[in-house]
């Protein structure tokens, strides 16, 4: 039996990697993938907590998150393509329009 804290540790590590990816990388594709990593880190925590507490709600939430993640990926990639067609780049440091 693996201790629940180990699952939570894995979850935290996955989430941390995701966060670092979102903050540090310049490629939007990578950032989107990092976001997926963060979501799945959370999923691990949900499932682990659900199994530990014997509550199926954790699993249900995990499925919920996966669904949202799938939708998010679809929309995100569509935006990415649109952005690429417009700006011919997916380097986030070159897209500096979000300012006053």
């Amino acid at each position, binding site marked *: 039996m693996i201790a629940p804290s180990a699952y939570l540790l894995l979850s935290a590590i996955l989430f941390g990697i995701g966060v670092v990816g979102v*903050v540090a990388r310049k490629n939007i594709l990578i950032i989107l993938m990092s976001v997926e990593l963060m979501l799945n880190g959370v999923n691990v925590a949900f499932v682990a907590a659900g199994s530990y507490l014997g509550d199926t709600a954790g699993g249900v939430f995990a499925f919920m998150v996966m669904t949202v993640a799938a939708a998010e990926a679809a929309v995100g990639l569509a935006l990415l393509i649109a952005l690429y067609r417009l700006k011919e780049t997916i380097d*986030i440091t070159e897209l500096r329009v979000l*300012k006053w």
Partner: protein
Amino acid sequence: MVNGILDYLWLVPALPLLGVVLNGAIALFAERPLLLREAGLPLTGGLGHGDASHGTSAPVTDQHGATHSDNAHGGRHETPQYRKLVAFIAPAVVGAAFVVALLCVLSLASRPADGRTFVQILFPWIQAGSLLVPAALQLDPLSSVMALVVTGVGFLIHVYSVGYMSHERAFARYFVCLNLFMFAMLTLVLANNYLLMFVGWEGVGLCSYLLIGFWYEKQSASDAGKKAFVVNRIGDFGVLLAMFLVFWTFGSLSFTEVFARVPLLRESGVLTTGLATAITLLLFLGATGKSAQIPLYVWLPDAMEGPTPVSALIHAATMVTAGVYMVARSSALFLLAPDTMMVVATIGAVTAIFSATIGICQTDIKRVLAYSTVSQLGYMFLACGVGAFTAAIFHLMTHAFFKALLFLGSGSVIHALSGEQDMRKMGGLKKYVPVTFATMFVATLAIAGVPGLSGFFSKDEILWQSFSSSHGSPFLWGIGAVAAGITAFYMFRLVFLTFFGKSRMDPEVEKHAHESPWSMTVPLAILAVLSVAGGWVGIPAVLGGSNLFEHWLAPVFHPVAAAEVVHGAAAGAAHAAEAGAHHSTTLEVGLMALSVAIALCGIAIAYFLYRVRTGKPAEIAKEWPTLYDVVYHKYYIDEFYEWAVIRRIVTFSTGLWEMFDALFIDGIVNGAAGLVRSAGDRVRRIQGGVVGGYAFSLLAGAVLLVGYLLYRSVVQ
């Protein structure tokens, strides 16, 4: 008691208001679109004509170029249907109001003398704490006289206007203003309380403004309207303060209640002489504004920029007498303040003689009449000031007749001469406009105080009272008598210059000189009859008359005496005998003869200077150039006000604008804006546009939030 027709008193002001509504609808929906289409303009209304070029049926020298000639080809000659409707409605409603007023007054007269106050409460108007002001009308002998004069003379002037303004394009707009004026004026004289009277007071001011500036595209006309409005505002300020004081003292604004409480409050010491003086002086300040007395008379001569019937109705017969009416209405208060009475009498006398002298040198026919009006109003205040309120109202009435006639006659002259107002360019008009001449001559005799005509009785009553009354003095009589002589002089100067002698007209103008249509001459004739006979209701006892007028007004001005008279047996005779016993009859007749002699002297001098030795006036002017110059320029009063008041106010206001507004207020506003701006300038640098940066701050925020929550849970 069954009130009968008196219950319909509300119709008197309501009928002109109906005219306003009907004519207003016509003006808005029929006339305005038509004028706009004709002018081909998007917004401006009627054309500015000026007295100089409107109101002539003969072809006029066209001063206004293109727009005018457009009309000549367009709709000008065909009378639009709505004009006939307006020409019917406007005089009809005023005439109907006159009939109702007359019936009401007759019904009132059938009551006993001490029961001749009828109050009709229409609806509760203002209810706030202890302030209860109903919209209530009051008909008593004083307001009867005013209502009859206003509606009667008003009706004649409406009829006259139909002819005089027949070529005016903004025809409906004119009559809307005129009807609105009648409504406001009737509200003023029929109101039962100071506040409702003030509504009428302001209403007539507004109409005066609208009608002086009727030809608003002419700069001088719009300036004159503004001047009248601003100067009157100073007086209105006084009336307002007086109303506050009245309410503070009496706890009511209703005439009946206030005057009934006077004796009681006087006894209990609440109403001190000082308080009465303050109230009456403030009321009188309002009267000097509305009734054009020194120091606020300057607007009235300028008001002649308006159409001539307006000058006759508003600036001679009715509105300008509102101040006299108000003083007479508040006579119970004025009699308690001897200082105010002295001020009123002095200002009246000084105004009478001061403006009469200005009238000597004016060349514009309407301006002579304007100064004459100021002077005659001075007489009325002189009468009020010596306590002869009856004489003041009597003169108010006769003056309304003959001054309206003089103005309408001058309008007829101006009409005949295609807009010429300069008396130097008239002369010999007698044969061109016989009716106008005859009627105006009658009015001139009346104003000059020739015995037998209305002006004689009223003016002499004032002079006698200013001599014999306990407030009067020989000095006041002297000023009044001299002013009467000057009046006779300048009025005959006007008549001689206008109607007699050789023609000095432009040949072009002379060719078209013509008598006015019947709609103008009939009112002239009726007013001429009134100018002659109007004074017969007030023939003094010393001349064998019964002075009906005084007995009629007695309940208003001497409530106690009137009650005694009613209970006494031979009312009229007893009163007259009692009055006669106080003064010597010979003295009264002697003074009367003296003032008539002075007036005849004035006429004789005018005859000598303007008929016999026609070169003489110019010589006199040359001999005393400074004196002539000063009088010709109206004693430079306008220039003095410009320097002493207007310039100061402008300097002060400029100071306020530059120091207070521009520096202080704008400083606060701009300072606050600048602060936010510079703060924003610094803060905006955080927002660099790098998405990674935003993501990082998001993360930092989340970490801080979670850290805080963890910290809290650990601490607890």
